[in-house]
């Protein structure tokens, strides 16, 4: 075993027990009693703000009332009818910005109803038992291709299958799940939950999943369009933006998404190397996930360097505090200018109203690893109109090409969240269904 102070990049900075404890569930599951107590706090608001705040529009007061009346499976049904990935969303949604952030008890007492954990309680009861709760409509004979088995693709495929269509799903990576499987901090989706949820979702039937197949490699949009009655693209954002500074192709510079993916797939976290000094560039959820997990692996000093102020940060205040509570240092108004010799030079920034500029003042931090978490880019090339670096869509995910829909991170509109992707996948499925059956 090494230690947090071992120089350079090293594995095994903390022992296995410590690592296991650190990567345990961030929000442990509620037991029946705790769920009852939490459910009793819901006021069953009229036209509830939490529902409005949920991209998938789950009838939250109803499902919480169902928990409180002892019908957790009915509660789960309420959730899953709106959001088939309600189990994962219960774990990874930034509820502080969505349902819980708008809860009237947040206004009243600064302590919202624990909607996320209640949703997990309800969905866990259904996911942990045999059988799939939804049945398929009679087969329509229509075939739809879904490219990308992430949240958008899965939601779309499930809804289409439920409506009686036959779905063929193509996934570029070795496993389905998208960012649920490869992104997102490990402590938010423990126990291989992402994989279990996909298995459960496919239990509806009518969906064939093939992994290792990607657009641009062995799939072409033209062929799909010819072979299927409709195509849905939920391919995510494959590329990671470069820093565009001196030294950004150096050994210690890596992309945070790749780091998280490697971590999520690692069978032994004590074997995963991490720097003694880690600097994460960016301000979103990925930056926080990468920084906190670096710290949990045993990095001695971890810093998030963000070019704007705290309020502009993509990560919620809750996520910022989570990072800070793990000992991650948050630096605001700094941008990287050079990486060299195990150190990164950051320049302070200011915005005088004409745009963000360096002030000329700099600081240098030791950095065995520099992680880029400054956004991802669309890597697909399918002859579709791209707008703002995403696939342009109108309505429920209609691209500029008839018969092709898109949703999730690759498509224009909405935040890059699991829950948003689910909503877009579901809505596109309904639109495809209407198109195929009109």
């Amino acid at each position, binding site marked *: 075993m090494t230690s947090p102070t071992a120089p350079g990049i090293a594995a095994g900075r903390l022992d296995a027990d410590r690592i296991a404890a650190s990567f345990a569930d961030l929000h442990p599951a509620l037991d029946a009693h705790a769920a009852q*107590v939490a459910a009793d706090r819901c*006021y069953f*608001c*009229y036209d*509830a*703000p939490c529902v409005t705040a949920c991209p998938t529009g789950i009838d939250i007061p109803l499902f919480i009332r169902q928990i409180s009346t002892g019908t957790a499976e009915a509660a789960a049904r309420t959730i899953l009818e709106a959001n088939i990935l309600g189990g994962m969303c219960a774990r990874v949604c930034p509820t502080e910005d969505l349902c819980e952030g708008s809860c009237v*008890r947040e*206004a*009243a007492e600064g302590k919202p109803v624990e909607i996320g954990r209640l949703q997990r309680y309800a969905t866990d009861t259904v996911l942990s038992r045999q059988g799939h709760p939804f049945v398929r409509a009679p087969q329509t004979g229509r075939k739809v291709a879904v490219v990308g088995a992430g949240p958008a693709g899965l939601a779309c495929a499930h809804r289409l299958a439920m409506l009686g269509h036959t779905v063929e799903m193509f996934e570029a990576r070795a496993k389905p799940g998208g960012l649920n499987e490869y992104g997102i901090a490990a402590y938010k989706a423990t126990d291989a939950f992402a994989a279990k949820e996909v298995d459960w979702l496919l239990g509806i039937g009518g969906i064939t999943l093939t992994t290792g197949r990607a657009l641009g490699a062995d799939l072409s949009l033209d062929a799909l369009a010819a072979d299927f009655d409709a195509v849905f693209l939920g391919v995510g954002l494959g590329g990671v933006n470069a820093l565009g500074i001196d030294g950004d192709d150096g050994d210690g510079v890596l992309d945070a998404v790749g780091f998280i993916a490697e971590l999520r797939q690692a069978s032994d976290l004590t074997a995963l190397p991490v720097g003694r000094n880690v600097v994460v560039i960016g301000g979103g959820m990925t930056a926080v996930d990468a920084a906190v997990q670096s710290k949990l692996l045993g990095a001695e000093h971890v810093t998030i360097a963000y070019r704007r102020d705290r309020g502009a940060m993509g990560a919620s205040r809750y996520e910022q505090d989570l990072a800070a509570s793990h000992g991650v240092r948050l630096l605001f108004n700094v941008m990287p200018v050079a990486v060299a010799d195990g150190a990164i030079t950051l320049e302070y920034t200011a915005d005088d109203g004409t745009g963000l500029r360096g002030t000329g003042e700099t600081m240098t931090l030791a950095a065995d690893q520099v992680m880029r978490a400054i956004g991802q880019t669309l890597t697909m090339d399918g002859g579709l109109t791209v707008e703002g670096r995403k696939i342009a869509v109108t309505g429920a995910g209609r691209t500029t090409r008839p018969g092709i829909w898109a949703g999730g991170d690759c498509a224009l509109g909405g935040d890059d969240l699991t829950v948003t992707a689910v909503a877009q996948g579901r809505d596109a499925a309904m639109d495809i269904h209407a198109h195929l059956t009109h």
Partner: protein
Amino acid sequence: MADLTTDFLGIRSPNPFWLASAPPTDKEYNVRRAYEAGWGGVVWKTLGAEGPPVVNVNGPRYGAIYGADRRLLGLNNIELITDRPLEVNLEEIARVKADYPDRALIVSLMVPCEEAAWKAILPRVEETNADGIELNFGCPHGMAERGMGSAVGQVPEYIEMVTRWCKENYDRPVIVKLTPNIADIRKPAQAAKNGGADAVSLINTINSITSVNLDSMSPEPMIDGKGTHGGYCGPAVKPIAMNMVAEIARDPGTRGLPISGIGGVTTWRDAAEFMALGCGNVQVCTAAMTYGFHVVAEMKAGLSQWMDEKGYARTSDFVGLAVPNVTDWQYLNLNYVAKAKINQDDCISCGRCYAACEDTSHQAIAMSADRKFTVIDAECVACNLCVDVCPVADCITMEAMPAGATDPRTGKVVTREYANWTTHPNNPGAVAAE
């Protein structure tokens, strides 16, 4: 500092909080703990006649109704009177009374409806030096099937007869405990008074089935697949109890008859309300059974603080003050006009007032796109439902319209003059206004 000392029928106790005759007062051990915890008095659990004691079921005796967070709102029981030998109870009563001379100790009694039975037990109770007796004419389960308890309490003639026997054969105060399982509480109260009762206490428990087990299809509490109605008590019965207390307090025939108030007293406020309606003291059971004897500490401190705030030096200063304001519907002032008012600073935008008003009432609350809720005075009949469903206390209030203002709902000018149904033009039997 308010003086909580209470004189009820000449029986002094350091505070008006007595434990009602019930499981918590079944034996010396419990009663000593109660006194140590600060209870002003105890009504010992009902004694039966000499002989083999009654037996209780060996399965569940209680059923419950819950509010949010499993807060116990109502309790039902099928426990009978004491199942310990009379001699043991009498010895313990004498011993406890000797050790706690400053606390009230009343003995509850239930023996067959024969004079001999009462003549046999009363001298023995007197020997204990207890401060008085309470006649249990209330228990609705078990004993009632044997012609006792509420079987007596439902027949005013029996109440009067037994009360008279007791007054003739016992020298200390006789309190008659009334059952609410009757149509008109004034009749048994009047009967008790006619029989010479020094006071009535009410209410005893209400016939009830608290829940049905949907697996075994039996009422709860369930004994080997069967259930029976039990006696309902706790916070849920307080409104029923207070109405019955008020009926007795304001009836010309029973006005002035001392009352010991029972029924869901859980906090100082509950006690103050019962006492304002004419009770000289209160008896408590479910609150103690839910929270333990220490709960009396809040009751005493709370009542004391409130009395200080109001300037009441002793409990008798406020007993009965609300009685003159209990009236019949026909005498309510129909010229009084109020409107709901929502305090926007306190509103948390849950919209429950809107749902209640829009779906089930008068469509008198407007909702804006940004979830601001405001009362539409032209529709509001001041029904109070919005106040009742609002989760924030005092966020919605009922504001009386001043005289001279025009009620936008009726177009009429509000007048300060009092006018009730008896003179209303829509009343076919109205007496002509002068």
